[in-house]
């Protein structure tokens, strides 16, 4: 390769020697580009994480701002028959050949007038209660997903007859009829058929539930005296709920038998199936819920105590340095001259940087004024440092070592070039450079909020959290133990840390959303660096303006 015998004269030797001495230090962007090209998987990981976080935030935000969306989804899922609960939506098959029909009943309205029925398209019929003031129980009779026996069984378990059935007189008085009614009148009303008192909702429900029989010319259950007997029996026996329920069921079975006999007699050809009887029984239960569940089913005591909170806080971040010893080179000595003790906070030129925190918390309202919270939070913090590097033609390998061991050799921004904290004598012809330390942390704040002043609408609160945190990146600069240089050493960083935060904020309630804004302060209790041979401690702190929204959890 080399034709040294051809051209190696003095001039060429000189050029070769001089050019070999020359070094240049690439900018950090070059390494970033190389690294990104080599580690595409990490890019995918970061992208996926960003996508997930964004998705969660968008979803949470939408749920907070448009709370009706979830209930619509619940209804939709109920229509597909995959949920059932005490507050749940429930599907019931009206008849085998009319699967699109469904009846949706929001049960237990406080007034009969609140219940109104509406049709749901050509193939279906919906009895929807527009009275939104009452929402303790919602039952949807919709497209069939479970078999009729299963459904009947579920209803018989889910709808427990009350220990003390409400007085029918009181029920009558609660009805929407503005005209005062006497007990006798109410009883008389009952004698006209129980669904006639229950306005269109029941009519619609009965139409759908009893529809098959009615359309076939059979007599519906609604006017039957046996049902009245059961209800009166329930009222009389008070707390005997199970027995009352059993009586109710027995009475229905008896009635069902009678109806079946009538059906067989009247129609001659009709078959009374157990499914039809079950439908009628379930319909009776649903209609019973219309009237009495409101009085007997107490609302969930934990309801209204759980909240979801999302928050965002632009922050200003700084750090405190302590430990280590400053080299006497500042006073003109050698790089490893006599060290003197003291804090390094003022020996470095650094300034705050902007960051951001965002996350979500689940809040539990323990008392009227005290709320406990736990959540997850992402924290990006940054600060900047002023440093000095050697002019390129003067660069040389640092020939000394510090108590940091290899650290000083490993600077990555300027290669092996020393990056001086203060441009001391080890850096001839210093060139100023600004270095940034970025920290990405995930934390799980646990804490409380205390209402100090205010009412339910406008409040002044204080709060505090303790946050176990995990450091995601370890590529920040580390100042050498003698406070002369910056370098990078990932192994020096402590991954797990503990941060404390305090905040004060004003909160304001609009509808179901509570808005809050206020200052916050956080401080990292443990040093950013591992304890051990590295003597310097760095504690991050930050000030922020926290903005948050809180919404009751369903």
């Amino acid at each position, binding site marked *: 390769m080399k034709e040294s015998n051809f051209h190696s004269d003095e001039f060429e030797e000189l*050029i070769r020697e001089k050019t070999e001495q020359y070094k240049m230090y690439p900018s950090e962007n070059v390494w970033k580009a190389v690294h990104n090209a080599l580690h595409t998987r990490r890019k995918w990981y970061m992208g996926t994480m960003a996508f997930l976080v964004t998705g969660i935030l968008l979803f949470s935000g939408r749920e907070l701002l448009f709370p009706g969306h979830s209930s619509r989804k619940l209804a939709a899922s109920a229509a597909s028959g995959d949920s059932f609960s005490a507050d749940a939506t429930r599907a019931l098959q009206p008849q085998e050949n009319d699967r699109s029909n469904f009846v949706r009943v929001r049960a237990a309205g406080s007034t009969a007038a609140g219940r109104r029925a509406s049709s749901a398209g050509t193939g279906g019929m919906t009895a929807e209660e527009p009275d939104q003031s009452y929402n303790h129980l919602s039952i949807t009779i919709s497209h069939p997903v479970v078999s009729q026996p299963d459904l009947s069984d579920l209803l018989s378990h889910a709808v427990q007859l009350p220990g003390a059935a409400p007085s029918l007189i009181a029920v009558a008085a609660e009805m929407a009829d503005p005209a005062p009614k006497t007990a006798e009148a109410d009883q008389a009303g009952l004698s006209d058929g129980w669904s006639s008192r229950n306005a269109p909702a029941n009519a619609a429900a009965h139409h759908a539930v009893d529809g098959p029989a009615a359309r076939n010319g059979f007599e519906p259950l609604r006017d039957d005296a046996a049902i009245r007997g059961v209800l009166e029996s329930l009222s009389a026996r008070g707390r005997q709920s199970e027995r009352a329920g059993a009586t109710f069921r027995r009475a229905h079975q008896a009635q069902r038998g009678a109806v079946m006999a009538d059906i067989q007699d009247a129609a001659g050809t009709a078959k009374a199936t157990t499914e039809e009887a079950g439908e009628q029984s379930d319909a009776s239960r649903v209609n019973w819920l219309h009237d009495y569940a409101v009085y007997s089913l107490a609302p969930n005591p934990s309801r209204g105590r759980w909240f979801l909170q999302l928050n965002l806080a632009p922050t200003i971040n700084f750090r405190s340095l302590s430990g280590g010893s400053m080299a006497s080179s500042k006073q003109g000595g050698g790089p490893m001259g006599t060290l003197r003790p003291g804090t390094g906070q003022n020996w470095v030129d650094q300034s705050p940087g902007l960051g951001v925190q965002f996350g979500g918390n689940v809040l539990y309202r323990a008392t009227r004024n005290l709320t406990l919270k736990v959540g997850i939070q992402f924290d990006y913090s940054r600060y900047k440092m002023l440093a000095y590097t050697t002019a390129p033609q003067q660069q040389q390998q640092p020939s000394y070592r510090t108590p940091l061991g290899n650290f000083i050799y*490993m600077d990555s921004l300027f290669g*092996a070039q020393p990056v001086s904290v203060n441009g001391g004598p080890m850096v001839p012809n210093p060139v100023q450079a600004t270095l940034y330390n970025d920290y990405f942390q995930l934390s799980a704040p646990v804490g409380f909020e205390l209402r100090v002043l205010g009412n339910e609408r406008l409040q002044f609160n204080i709060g505090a959290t303790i946050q176990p945190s995990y450091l995601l990146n370890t590529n920040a600069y580390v100042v050498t133990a003698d406070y002369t240089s910056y370098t990078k050493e990932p192994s020096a960083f402590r991954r797990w840390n503990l941060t404390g935060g305090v905040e004060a904020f004003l909160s304001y309630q609009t509808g179901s959303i509570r808005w809050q804004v206020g200052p916050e302060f956080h401080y990292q209790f443990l040093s950013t660096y591992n304890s051990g041979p590295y003597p310097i401690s760095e504690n991050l702190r930050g000030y922020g303006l926290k903005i948050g929204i809180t919404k009751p959890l369903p």
Partner: protein
Amino acid sequence: MTEEAILQGCLKNVATAQRELYNRYSPKMLAVCYRFAHNREDAEDMLQEGFIKVFSQMHTFQNKGAFEGWIRRIIVHTCINNLKKNKRFNESLDIVHAHGIQIREESVPSIVQAKQIVECIRILPIGYRTVLNLYAIEGYSHKEIADMLDIEESTSRSQYTRAKQMLEDILVRKKILARPKEKAEWLAAVR
């Protein structure tokens, strides 16, 4: 971290080992790129591309020679490939064309010698500069240079001779080098 450990880490695609390797060799390699490139930005682009090749072709390195030399060859080839994409570079390899190029000597900064020499090399016409870099500094033969640049071997020789002469003149005029006394006298006599 030893070179062997760095190599093993790079083969396993370990980021810290790659970073260590980059830290160790990027200053020298950027200087190499800078001598070929039009400006620093171009040099950094070449360096970036070169190091990506280094890491992705690490498995092809066989411990037969110096690792630095292997990296350097990749970097130089990357620089040449970049230059060959430039039409002006291809034109400048024309020896006749290169004669007419004016040198902007005023752009040479008056700082210490190593940087001065590099900057003087960089103000040579790009064809001269490339051949000079490859031959005098990187140690390629004229035959190899001819193959790399798709030119005749004789063209490489003549380009180098002229480049060397031009550089020497610049360095003398900048008082970075002193011309040998007898040569100066000879030149004066000739003129």
